[in-house]
């Protein structure tokens, strides 16, 4: 048992490090430097960095070279990600496009669409978003109502999507619509790619309870798309969407927030309970122990997954636990860090709060993180059904035509 690279992995890591050293700044050496706060500038920098990566074979490392990828292995992709994390480079805005949308286009799109879109997406010239969730369908995505009606060689789309990351700067999107309300819900869906710059598409930011606005509502008013923009057959939209969603859990990572047990130990030394340092309090010590054990458990679960990848095996289902544990831990640890500040815990000011305000930020952010990319409850269903082999939930609308199924307002 060891954490070492195989000789091939070590060689790849060395090559990656050399390339990054030449083309980017290590975070450790980037004191005072930061990524642009202005969105336009950030996008410009992101695009330039993505193009550089594509030229060197580090964009879409696992994709075949003929599609602009690196022709590499999953473990190489992991190694690149580990190394890149040490450098101050823009990242993230291509994750949904390259992690979910383009794989769907590649799996289901006509040859012209693949030729037209894959290359520019890999290079970062064009950015994609995913338009699935609706006000009436979050966990139950197949309950969506956005309508697409055939009109000659075109489809006319009306409806609304929600929680669309990056819709305000994306060029294209994949859109799941209802094309037949007279059949059960999973059977009446169809997928399209659309031009986000079309005037019939209106994007409005959603202000989250944290105050940020990373997501959008997207409205379609008589949006006309060509039949050639269809991905998969009419009525096969659910099957197509599963290609996308299979990639979602990989795309939504296992972040545990910025404050962890080390920060908590420091904070507990500074603050008091009944006039004594909080670190001496049994309740504080027990929580520190519990969260440390959880954090270690998550870290080494990931190492088990990486080991399987390193051996060229398919990872076991253990990776499915990570977000269930990480999101709740992030929320609870943030909340407890606020408790330790006693009355002062209400202050939300990076300058006044300990750890740069990390406790309040992760407390408020975790409320959303426990929902994004699969709620705690959906993820438990997934573990129960796919890992433990328990039956699916009873679905009273499964066999009813969509337009006769019970609905709230």
């Amino acid at each position, binding site marked *: 048992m060891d954490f070492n690279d195989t000789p091939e992995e070590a060689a790849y890591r060395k090559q990656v490090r050399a390339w990054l050293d030449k083309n980017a700044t290590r975070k450790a050496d980037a004191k005072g430097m930061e990524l642009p706060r202005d969105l336009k500038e950030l996008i410009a920098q992101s695009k330039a960095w993505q193009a550089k990566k594509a030229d060197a074979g580090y964009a879409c490392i696992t994709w075949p070279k003929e599609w602009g990828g690196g022709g590499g292995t999953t473990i190489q992709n992991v190694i690149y990600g580990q190394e890149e994390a040490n450098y101050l480079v823009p990242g993230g805005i291509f994750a949904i496009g390259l992690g979910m949308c383009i794989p769907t286009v590649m799996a289901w799109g006509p040859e012209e669409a693949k030729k037209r879109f894959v290359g520019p997406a890999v290079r970062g010239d064009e950015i994609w978003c995913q338009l699935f969730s609706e006000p009436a369908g979050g966990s139950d995505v197949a309950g969506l109502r956005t309508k697409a009606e055939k009109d000659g060689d075109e489809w006319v789309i009306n409806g609304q999507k929600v929680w669309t990351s990056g819709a305000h700067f994306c060029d294209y999107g994949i859109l799941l619509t209802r094309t037949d309300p007279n059949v059960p819900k999973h059977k009446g869906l169809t997928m399209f790619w659309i031009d986000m710059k079309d005037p019939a598409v209106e994007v409005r930011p959603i202000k989250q309870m944290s105050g940020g606005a990373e997501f959008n509502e997207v409205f379609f008013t008589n949006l006309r798309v060509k039949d050639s923009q269809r991905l998969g057959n009419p009525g096969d939209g659910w099957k197509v969407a599963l290609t996308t969603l299979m990639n979602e859990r990989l795309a939504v990572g296992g972040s545990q927030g910025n404050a962890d047990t080390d920060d908590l130990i420091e904070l507990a030394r500074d603050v008091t309970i009944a006039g004594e340092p909080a670190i001496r309090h049994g309740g504080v010590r027990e929580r520190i122990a519990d969260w440390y054990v959880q954090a270690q458990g998550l870290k*080494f679960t990931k190492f088990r997954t990486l080991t399987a990848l390193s051996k060229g095996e398919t990872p076991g289902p253990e990776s499915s636990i990570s977000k269930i544990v990480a999101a709740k831990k992030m929320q609870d640890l943030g909340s407890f860090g606020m408790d330790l500040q006693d009355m002062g815990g209400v202050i939300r000011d990076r300058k006044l709060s300990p750890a740069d305000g990390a406790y309040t930020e992760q407390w408020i952010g975790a409320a959303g993180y426990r929902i994004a990319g699969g709620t705690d409850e959906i993820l438990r269903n997934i573990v129960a059904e796919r890992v433990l082999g328990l039956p699916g939930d009873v679905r009273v609308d499964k066999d009813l035509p969509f337009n006769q199924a019970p609905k709230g307002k």
Partner: protein
Amino acid sequence: MNFDFSDDQKMLKEQVRKFLSDKCPMTVTRRVLEKEEAYAEEVWKGLVEMGLTGTAIPEEFGGLGLGALELCVIAEELGRSAAPVPFSSSIYLAAEAIKLFGTQKQKETWLPKLAAGEIIGTVAISEGLHAAHPRNIEAKFAGGKVNGVKQPVADGGVASVAVVAVNTGGSGEQAISLAIVDLKAGGVSAEPVRTIDPSRQQVTLTLKDAPAEILGDKQGEGWSQLSRVLDGAAVLFAFEQVGGTEAALDMARDYALERYAFGRQIGSYQAIKHKLADMYVKKELAKSNAYFGAMMLNDEGSELTEAAAASRIAGSDAYVFAAQENIQTHGGIGYTWESDCQFHYRRAKLLALTIGAPIQWKEKLVSRLEAKNAA
């Protein structure tokens, strides 16, 4: 990244699993518990014949000279079958203590017999309600004799040798030494004590002028020696806990699939599905922590204490939770004497308390983290 057991170790695991599923089904655990046998002699004999008792004992002392990782895979299978045998007392604790800290002569005297399963060993630490702490060890060693009462002592009724925590005078941790007591040499009485898990016999061990010698050649090092022995045992117990958790989860899953209520399999209700998913989550966290514990133990790594504590905390949490929620999933039938659910419920709590309760290990862990954080 090679954070996994080797193919040979996995093969060993399979062999142990096969042996135990053939020779040590729950009916054996039930028999030992109901008949108040000290342990399942035929299962113990089989494990000895497979050479498992000598796994991590060096060849010069009659063992196979393999490492901690091999013991870990054996432990996981012993835990899965809730085996009623004195393996943990004799091997993870007594043999490891003598191997780590004994003199050459002590090793020559005891290790070959422990490796060959000719005798059983144990450790005796606790003296009743008080947590194991230098202040709470009253058994005295003086003039080559031990006097005191140890309670509870696992397998103390069948063991021939015990490593006993004793007070040798002085203050604080320096007051504590470990003594080797030949339990067959007189001055020893063992009275079985009623416990939550009678499938693993425990006794009150009364030592009256029992002939003994200090483990190793120096007095006053017992507390740190014991701490190291318990770190190793914590990792091995954690593998037993992972195996037990998996067994309890499998039982709950199988029952949730076969039992119907309100016209549906109970496993189709989210209340049950999410409960079982939570068991799985805890099991994986425990397993991942135990893997790191195994690696640190095998390499005698600098993070052994933290890794052992984390393994123990996560392992105890997972198995206790899975065992209790397994009964809950079964409903009334799970609470009957005829149900096998009770064996995991008993064993899970036993494992969580033997070698120290989770709250004690949390304290040990946080003390270490504090020291590291200050550095």
